[in-house]
């Protein structure tokens, strides 16, 4: 048997860090018409248990013949045993993954990236803002916080999607609304079903619905399409949340996930190693991102 890896902090890897392990898809169902949800377990059982990760980290998923691509982990480390991924059909590899059935295998290596700074977030209020696919990594954070409910202050979850049909984990989040230990606000840009009972409007509208926050004591985590960042960040800065407490996950092209291939470099940082979670304060120092929709208007 291949030697097992111990990951996380030391980032020490025995053997070949590019070596994917085979994971079996135990469950698969569609979340929307172009996003599938996958639960996977390592073919080598011990490997599953050793997959210790932080919310916000990602894995490199492999399909032989199509290569590799990064995917955020949607499950929470507080519920070990299964790895959960949401995958949107976008191109070469994701199209093949999309067509994979239960019981088929997929290559996985990781986890990689820094993840959310859970140690710093503990004891604080948490404000999560998810747009579209952004729900994939943020679900991990949300579920982790809920599983460790006593370690966190107030939890607010804002989630926007274009239509009800495109909202990831819609049922799951609707159920969360029943809970009284968090505020869960959902909205869609447009209700094409006529049956939507929640808010209608862009995600920033939800800020108006939310209870006042204790800004200095709040960590905000944002993930969504590039256009969303600009508006959400404006609101967060407007709320006076310290810039180093605004967390955002960035997306970049990646070929290795471990700081070798160079593609995800942004100035001196590698999205894969130093990110994908960055604070807004980090981003403000990245000239390349300024003026590209992420942080213009708010520099001053």
């Amino acid at each position, binding site marked *: 048997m291949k030697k097992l890896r111990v990951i996380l902090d030391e980032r020490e890897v025995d053997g070949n860090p590019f070596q994917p392990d085979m994971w079996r898809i135990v469950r698969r169902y569609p979340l929307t018409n172009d996003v599938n949800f996958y639960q996977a377990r390592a073919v080598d059982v011990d490997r599953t248990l050793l997959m210790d990760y932080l919310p916000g980290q990602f894995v490199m998923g492999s399909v032989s013949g199509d290569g590799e691509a990064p995917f955020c982990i949607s499950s929470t480390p507080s519920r070990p045993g299964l790895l959960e991924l949401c995958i949107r059909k976008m191109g*070469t590899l994701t199209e093949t993954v999309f067509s994979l059935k239960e019981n088929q295998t997929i290559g996985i290596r990781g986890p990689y990236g820094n993840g959310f700074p859970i140690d710093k977030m503990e004891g604080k209020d948490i404000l999560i803002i998810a747009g579209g696919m952004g729900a994939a990594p943020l679900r991990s954070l949300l579920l982790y916080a809920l599983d460790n409910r006593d370690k966190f202050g107030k939890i607010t979850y804002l989630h926007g999607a274009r239509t009800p049909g495109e909202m990831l984990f819609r049922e799951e989040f609707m159920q969360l609304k029943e809970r009284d230990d968090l505020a869960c606000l959902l909205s869609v840009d447009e209700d094409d079903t006529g049956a939507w009972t929640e808010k209608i409007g862009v995600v920033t509208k939800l800020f108006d619905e939310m209870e006042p926050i204790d800004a200095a004591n709040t960590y905000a985590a944002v993930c969504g399409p590039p256009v969303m960042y600009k508006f959400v960040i404006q609101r967060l800065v407007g709320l006076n949340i310290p810039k180093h407490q605004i967390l955002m996950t960035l997306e970049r092209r990646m070929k290795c996930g471990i700081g070798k291939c160079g593609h995800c470099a942004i100035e001196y940082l590698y999205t894969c190693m130093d990110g994908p979670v960055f604070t807004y304060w980090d981003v403000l120092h990245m000239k390349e991102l300024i003026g590209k929709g992420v942080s213009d208007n708010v520099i001053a």
Partner: protein
Amino acid sequence: MSSPKVGIYGFTGCAGDQLMILNCEDRLVDIIGAVDIHSFAMAKSDNQNKELDVAFVEGSISTEEQLEHLKDIRSRAKVVVAIGTCACWGGPQAMKLEEGGFEDRYGGVYGDANITVTKAFEAQPVDAFVEVDMKIPGCPIDKTEFLSAVSKVVAGRHPYFYKFPVCTECKWKENPCILNEGKFCAGPLTKAGCGAVCPSHNIPCVGCWGPTDDLNLSGEYKLLVEKGYDTDEIMRKFKKFGGAGIAKLIKSMKDEQRGVSE
């Protein structure tokens, strides 16, 4: 799984790409084993016109008859792959696309004889007439690149093609840059995939793979003017193989220049 049904067709060109398929000597048997070749006019007699999984189309389209045949192929095939620079861009016979003068050139060859087989027109790439799912350029196609693409196409996957210019492969081969000797080289404009054969033989790239994904035509144009090239000659060299692709780029470069001078 039944093997995919494949057809290989040739239109206006030199038949070099079909020949390259035949030239896959050691791999030919693998190809025949992996796919069910329904039609390959250049190589066999018992050809059928049925539904196809993949149609490989070589050559540019330059007569009414070809156009009809092409449309028929498209209607029968799930995936249409243009192979070779003629099919992808038009090839050398399309070097004067957008310039007009086809009738004069035609008359220059055939006089006023009324050729009855079919009506001819200026050669154009396949995608000028029907939807093309994939392009494998090259004059002729490169064996390795072709086999790599075919292996994926028949498995229903997306092939990967180098998107960078010939210069990259040229540097992999460690050739001194011909542009730096003050001579023309189409390397920066041309899609890689050939292994930079020409520069590796101390010969400038002539652009036979057609334009690459991202190029700076006006940059190279200015550079060549600086090096003392005649502007007509530069244009002729640019247009040698890239047909419709390069014509489009030249048009936008000229628009740009006009915009600047206004």
